[in-house]
């Protein structure tokens, strides 16, 4: 099944079926165009490239093995694991090969980039709620699949969610995943602390961070999904300005991030007193301070005055419960009322919700007609691309 199975416009350059799409492993067949972003710190770089034999734009991820060190094992795991998985919402690796001191991984081009890109470049106050519903539902399908395959993802975050041309969300970042099956037995809990995970700490569940004999299981990913929901809605990642140790104590004490809107922002609560319970909880957890410290995004009032649906609030709260036992599984959450919103509200498909973002493919194809690759490359490098995280 292809990533682009729902493609309606069927652009000539994308593969309809990755089984037919035999990507070669000859480095010469790939022409790199421009840098799309970085991943894995400075170990990997993601390029827009053209696979010459098929004249297809693809994403080429190059890992510098000289710099890899501790990441080496992760990169290896990622390639092996990803090639074993096949799901429309899980990233695909079309080919992997070695070029000089680099390991190169070929994946389909994700026209909208990662959700982190979208937040950084276009939606600093968060994505529209309906867009989030689309995205998270796809990611839940991916998690449900991965969990049933016996893996825990351990790095669910916006930069690991990529969106293709058709608005389908795809989960990547599988290099941090770990196996639940050990010696042929399905473990109830695992205890391993993901190595080189410093960048993902803010998204990890309290039980994973606690590293005690209780261990954690696939419900840990549901917590990360909750944190990601807040990231997508608020524009910034929770605990962003916190030292890791404070983030840890906060999570262990049971404080979880919230979706910011008029029901959860204290300014409103102070005057309105609409929901005393909420107001209390928020004041107690010190959101007031954070609002001041993150002043500009909230002062404009976009976050503090908007109103997110109760469905969304309930969804994030379910994911962010302290006790993993209480968190629903991915399969259960797919049925949550939050994901019925787009249909109920007759929402347009995701690409339209993301307007005015122009997916990368179109540009490339347009210019491809002009036979002017290099102009694209130039234009792309003007796009302030260094700031973005294509961490797939």
């Amino acid at each position, binding site marked *: 099944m292809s990533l682009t199975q729902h493609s309606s416009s069927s652009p000539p350059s994308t593969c309809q079926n990755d089984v037919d799409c035999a990507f070669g492993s000859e480095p010469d067949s790939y022409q790199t165009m421009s840098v799309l972003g970085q991943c894995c710190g400075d170990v990997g770089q993601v390029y827009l490239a053209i696979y010459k034999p098929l004249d297809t734009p693809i994403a080429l991820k190059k890992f510098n093995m000289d710099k890899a060190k501790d990441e080496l094992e992760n990169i290896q795991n990622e390639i092996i694991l990803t090639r074993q998985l096949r799901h429309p919402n899980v990233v695909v690796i079309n080919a992997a090969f070695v070029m000089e001191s680099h390991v190169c991984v070929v994946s389909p081009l994700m026209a909208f980039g990662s959700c982190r890109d979208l937040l950084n470049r276009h939606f600093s106050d968060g994505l529209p709620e309906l867009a989030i519903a689309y995205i998270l539902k796809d990611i839940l399908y991916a998690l449900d699949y991965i969990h049933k395959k016996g893996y825990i993802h351990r790095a669910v975050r916006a930069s690991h969610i990529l969106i293709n041309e058709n608005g389908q969300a795809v989960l990547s970042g599988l290099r941090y995943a770990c196996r639940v099956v050990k010696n042929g037995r399905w473990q109830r809990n695992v205890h391993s602390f993901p190595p080189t995970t410093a960048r993902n700490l803010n998204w990890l569940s309290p039980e994973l961070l606690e590293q005690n004999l209780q261990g954690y299981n696939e419900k840990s990913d549901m917590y990360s999904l909750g944190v990601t929901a807040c990231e997508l809605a608020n524009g910034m990642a929770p605990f962003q300005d*916190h030292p890791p140790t404070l983030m840890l104590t906060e999570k262990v004490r049971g404080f979880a991030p919230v979706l910011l809107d008029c029901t959860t922002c204290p300014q409103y609560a102070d005057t309105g007193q609409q929901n005393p319970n909420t107001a209390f909880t928020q004041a107690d957890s*010190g959101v007031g301070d954070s609002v001041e410290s993150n002043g500009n995004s909230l002062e404009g009032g976009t976050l503090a005055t908007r109103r997110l649906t109760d469905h969304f609030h309930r969804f994030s709260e379910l994911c962010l419960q302290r006790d993993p036992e209480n968190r629903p599984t991915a399969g259960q959450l797919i049925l949550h009322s939050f994901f019925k919103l787009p249909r109920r509200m007759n929402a347009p498909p995701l690409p339209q919700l993301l307007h005015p973002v122009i997916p990368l493919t179109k540009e490339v194809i347009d210019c491809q007609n002009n036979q002017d690759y290099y102009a694209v490359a130039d234009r792309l490098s003007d796009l302030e691309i260094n700031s973005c995280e294509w961490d797939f």
Partner: protein
Amino acid sequence: MGSERAEEHIVLAYSDEEVLDDEEGGSRIFDDLEPASWINDEDTDVPIFHRVDSDQIIYEAKKKRCKMIGKYVMGDLLGEGSYGKVKEVLDSETLCRRAVKILKKRKLRRIPNGEQNVQREITLLKKLRHRNVIGLLDVLVNDEKEKMYLVMEFCVGGLQDMLESTPQKRFPLWQAHGYFCQLMDGLQYLHSQRIIHKDIKPGNLLLTLSGILKISDLGVAEALDFFAEDDTCFTGQGSPAFQPPEIANGHEKFLGFKVDIWSSGVTLYNITTGLYPFEGDNIFRLFENIAKGEYTIPDEIENPLRDLLHGMLQKDAVKRFTLQQIRQHPWFWRKPPQTLEQVPVPPLRGDELHNMTVLPYLMDYHYVEDPTSVQPQYYTEHERNAWAEGQNPERYGFEWQEPVNNIRSKEGSPKKYPDEMGYGSPDTHQTEESGESTSDSSKRKSKRKTTSCISVKKFPPCKQS
């Protein structure tokens, strides 16, 4: 720093008796002491202590002052050896639990070859990297205090502690088999690196949270010279009960790899039977018995294992099994059926889950702005025992579990999505804020709780789940 230890000490005691105020040991002496055996040991006619009810003994909680060594936050004591202490630490950047071996130069000088052994251990560990050999991640030195800190992988416990926690001092065969296989993997790696451990014993085999066995303590290990023809060694400093006949006999030189095979054989014997193949009232008797090489294996040990033990405990080092022979042995490659219950890692200071001991220090660091403003916190022996017995509900000094429980009881099954879920209901509110007015016994928690909430400087957009 005097308050390093995370133990409590007694400040008040009922009646006029000076109960105990030991600087170093503190209440740990009480921990180890079973009141019943104490009384029975005494001449009952002449009681020394009046009977003191456990809720009449009052402790003051030791302040958890956060202390950092480099990027590591110090936690509580994990173990103690002649060289110094082993404490838990937390890497403040990766939040990964670690253990730190603290070496005091003053103490090391008093141990024969102390400083050399440490130096050797560091050089060896630095170049080793294997799943079943303890990893050394960092070495820090404080010249002023004459201390050295070896940051290692975190382990929850050792095989020795686990054995001692069971009545029969042994593991079920399937469990022992798992450890033995990992021991052989680690040993094969060490030998491939031309390193002879020389001190293989259950006490030096540690377990990580995931149950991975780590060979540790390379203090007396020897790295063979690069140009050495074979594995001939001249010195042995390991633990007596695990030494092979050639060392017990005082041979001038012996085959190094076979020393580790013998000690592994004694280890396997010990963890499967709960006994030692050789014993003696003193080291001379012990060595005499080892030198004879005569031992019996209990009848309950059946054949493939029996044969393996005989092969590993061959008096003649040349005839003794090699690693290859062990790996090809039928007992090695057939996993015994998992019939008996697994022996768990025993609790540490009453904590079965072996929670991070660094957390209370971090709580203090992040939430208590002015340390002097915190009232001393008192609790009774009775409460202490209750915490130790129960699931240690107050392990962080915070009541975070309560709201969670509230949710659970209200929610019922996770499939339901009740409206109020997650938001502080009036009940939660009550328990949170009315803490101040509750009874004395809960003073400690409520005090902590309130101070902590007021004084946090930076807060995330967060709520209580």
